[in-house]
């Protein structure tokens, strides 16, 4: 089985291998960016490569799913060759397991190499990343999905999804399209609904202080949003104002009047008065029991989150493979 799988897989493997080689050649030719926290920032070119690398790592699993996964069963059915290969002395269950195992392994290797390559090149940039730039933290969503081991898990999942759609739809082009759509929808959903809750996020609750609270206006009047300084090196999920009972609420309406007695169009001149009045406002806020809460995933959890998410995607991939086997047995 392995020989046949490798023989049939040869062209697709060469195509993706060539793609990887081309990316490697470009990144090696360009060289790693020279940046320091103090010194010169990212050049325009380096910035382009940096973001292209992140985008490419997010797209790569989809390519694996659509081009390696989706044709796996359907191409045989379309060409009728399933009636040749399933009538040798190998059950179709073993046939599919052998094929998915070999190609999934190739997907792991290819994505792993790609991820390593991009992480290596972007290393200097990642090293100087802070909340305030010049690059995003590795814990933040877009970077998180393009570093570490999760791209490999995405690729295995996308591949299993492609195989399942292949066995279900039995036609290559629809299977490719459905795989791409489902994978994209799943990734977007998982990003907003799953990853923040993979581990219970940390919460930091404290009183607002006049010194470091920033204001955010949803419109031109009350209520205004009060934002506490966020914890360092964290992926901030939510910033809320809590009332005395601990329920999330909007900031009290009087706070706007208190801070901006003349309205936004009529700002008060800065001065000792201004500061005193501000502090009085915040004292009243504290007295009425209002507090701020920041919900976040700290950077220290990077690898825990990476492995947890990897385990989740691999479990889903196993489930999809089970479906693929089930659907393959129903093909005639």
């Amino acid at each position, binding site marked *: 089985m392995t020989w046949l799988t490798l*023989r049939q897989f040869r062209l697709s493997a060469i195509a993706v291998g060539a793609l990887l080689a081309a990316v490697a050649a470009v990144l090696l030719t360009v060289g790693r960016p020279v940046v320091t926290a103090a010194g010169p920032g990212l050049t325009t070119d380096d910035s382009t490569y940096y973001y292209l690398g992140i985008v490419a790592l997010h797209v790569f699993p989809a390519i694996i799913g659509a081009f390696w996964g989706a044709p796996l069963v359907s191409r045989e059915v379309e060409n009728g060759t399933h009636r*040749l290969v399933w009538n040798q002395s190998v059950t179709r269950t073993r046939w599919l397991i052998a094929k998915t195992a070999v190609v999934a392994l190739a997907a792991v290797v290819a994505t792993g190499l790609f991820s390593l390559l991009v992480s290596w090149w972007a290393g200097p940039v990642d090293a100087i990343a802070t909340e305030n730039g010049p690059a995003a933290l590795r814990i933040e969503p877009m970077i998180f999905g393009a570093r570490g081991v999760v791209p490999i898990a995405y690729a295995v999942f996308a591949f299993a999804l492609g195989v399942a759609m292949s066995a279900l739809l039995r036609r290559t082009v629809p299977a490719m399209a459905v795989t791409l759509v489902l994978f994209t929808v799943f990734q977007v959903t998982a990003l907003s609904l799953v990853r923040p809750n993979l581990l219970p996020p940390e919460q930091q609750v404290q009183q607002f202080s006049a010194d470091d609270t920033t204001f955010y206006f949803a419109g031109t009047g009350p209520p205004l949003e009060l934002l506490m300084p966020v914890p360092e090196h964290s992926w901030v999920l939510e910033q809320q104002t809590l009332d005395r009972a601990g329920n999330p609420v909007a900031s009290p309406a009087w706070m706007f009047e208190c801070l901006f007695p003349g309205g936004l169009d009529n700002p008060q001149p800065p001065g000792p008065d201004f500061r005193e009045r501000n502090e009085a406002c915040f004292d009243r806020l504290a007295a009425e029991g209002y507090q701020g809460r920041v919900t976040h995933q700290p950077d220290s959890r990077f690898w825990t989150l990476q492995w947890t998410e990897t385990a989740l995607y691999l479990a889903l991939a196993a489930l999809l493979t089970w479906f693929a086997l089930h659907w393959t047995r129903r093909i005639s």
Partner: protein
Amino acid sequence: MTAMLRARGLGKKYRQRWALSDCTLEIPAGRVVGLVGPNGAGKSTLLGLAAGMTTPTTGEIEVCDGRPGSGPAQLAKVGFVSQDTPTYAGLTVAEHLRLGARLNPGWDADLARGRVERLGLDPSQRAGRLSGGQRAQLALTIGIAKRPEVLLLDEPVAALDPLARRGFLQDLMETVAEHGVGVVLSSHLITDVERVCDHLVTLVDSRVVLAGEIDDLLDTHHRLTGPRRDPATLPADQHVVTAVHTDRQTTLLVRTESPIIDPAWTVGKVSLEDLVLAYLDSPAPATPRPALEVLR
């Protein structure tokens, strides 16, 4: 005696349509069976069920005493070449043989190589560039070289010109004789069946209407010609398959085990083609069907 194919109440339904219904058959081992019938009568369905490509909706089927497709051992016992004789267009002839060798523990490499040589196939040729006949031969080679007990061939000669068809069948018969493999061969050409088969199964409208050893079938069917007469007045053991009346004359095709003794009849032999056509023409017989003959 073991049967190479045994079916009991076998039926297969696709959506709303029964492709095969109430099929009961028992074919002894080592036969060369011709499966005939019009298009859509259920020939491919029956072969697909026997190969284990599909599962029955009702009833059961056994091939070489095993449930089709139940495992590697069962798959090894059955060779199946489907209607379109599929091959991998991108793989060469030699690679197809390698595929066969890798996927079949009982692979007969000498047999495969010998056949390919004898047929004049270039081992380095891609299957996509072979002619229809060559592709059919390659698919058959893989089917034979896995050394099955039963070879199921679905319209193997449909794509071939008459000359290639004759060669293919001749070659098939030589292989069958050499290795003692049982064959079920579907075809809509009765001449092909007559040339190579010793057993016949006729399907019409998803049902078996005639089954048995061809010699027996020919011996028990007679064409009777005589003065016009109502077929209902025949002896009870003579079953009328078809009846044609003119003003003065009646021609009957009857099936009977006993000799025809009525001197009013001129008794004639029936050719296999006429026999099959008679069954294809006649509406589903209400009288006990000859198909039941193979039952015990």
